[in-house]
């Protein structure tokens, strides 16, 4: 599923990486625990999290995850967004909760990592 179709499906705002929306997403990892994501990296996967601090972007960077989707209406601050843009990581934000986001993506064939 293309990142832009994910954004449309989840009515997500694109906060960084508007030029990266053609990335194809086959796998997603979802957690608020950064060590958990780092423990089982799935390069190329979409990272879904409710954790909006700078470590979330660093985690995506270290695990080679090209996009981060923030759930539950959470919005990262400008520094996070700037860091993501500098690292070529797309940032999306949706009002939907973790469960609904995962369910909707799973229904459309995105597989879970971890």
């Amino acid at each position, binding site marked *: 599923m293309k990142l832009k179709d994910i954004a449309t499906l989840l009515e997500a705002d694109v906060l960084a990486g508007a030029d990266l929306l053609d990335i194809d997403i086959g796998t997603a990892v979802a957690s608020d*625990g950064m*060590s958990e994501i780092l423990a089982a990296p799935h390069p190329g996967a979409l990272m879904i999290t409710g954790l909006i601090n700078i470590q979330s972007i*660093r985690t995506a960077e*270290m*695990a080679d995850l090209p996009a981060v989707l923030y759930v539950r209406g959470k919005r990262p601050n400008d520094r996070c967004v700037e860091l993501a843009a500098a690292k070529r990581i797309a940032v999306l934000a949706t009002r939907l909760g973790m469960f609904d986001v995962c369910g909707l993506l799973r229904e459309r064939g995105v597989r879970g990592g971890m």
Partner: protein
Amino acid sequence: MPEVLLQRAFEVRGGDFDKAGETSSEIKALLKEVGIDPTLIRRAGVVTFEAEMNVVMYAESATVVFTLSDEDISIEVFDRGPGIADVDLAMQEGYSTATDEMRQMGFGFGMGLPNIKKNSDIFKLESEVGKGTRLYSAIRLDGAS
């Protein structure tokens, strides 16, 4: 004797959550520049980032020495801090002395040191209570893990 191709030292400050990850990021960039395999770069990134987070969470300051030789990537972290009284206990998955505040930042579930070990071909952790901790991780370039 392995030949050293690249060596850099970085300083990490305890409590500096905002900068945590900068050293890992620079190491990643250095490895990318010389064309190291992405899987090995990822492993080095995870090792350094978890080690950096530990310094930020538990220690006062640290020196991180990154070395690329023709045999391996090594990450050595010497910190000045409280040290670890029981290294075997600290290595156990799930053991953590992190505060709720640290947990809210997505760390502090007792997975950091096990993550570091898992990504290392050689791993050493030594500590002296009241002085500090030395962590050594090496990742072989031939990919054996």
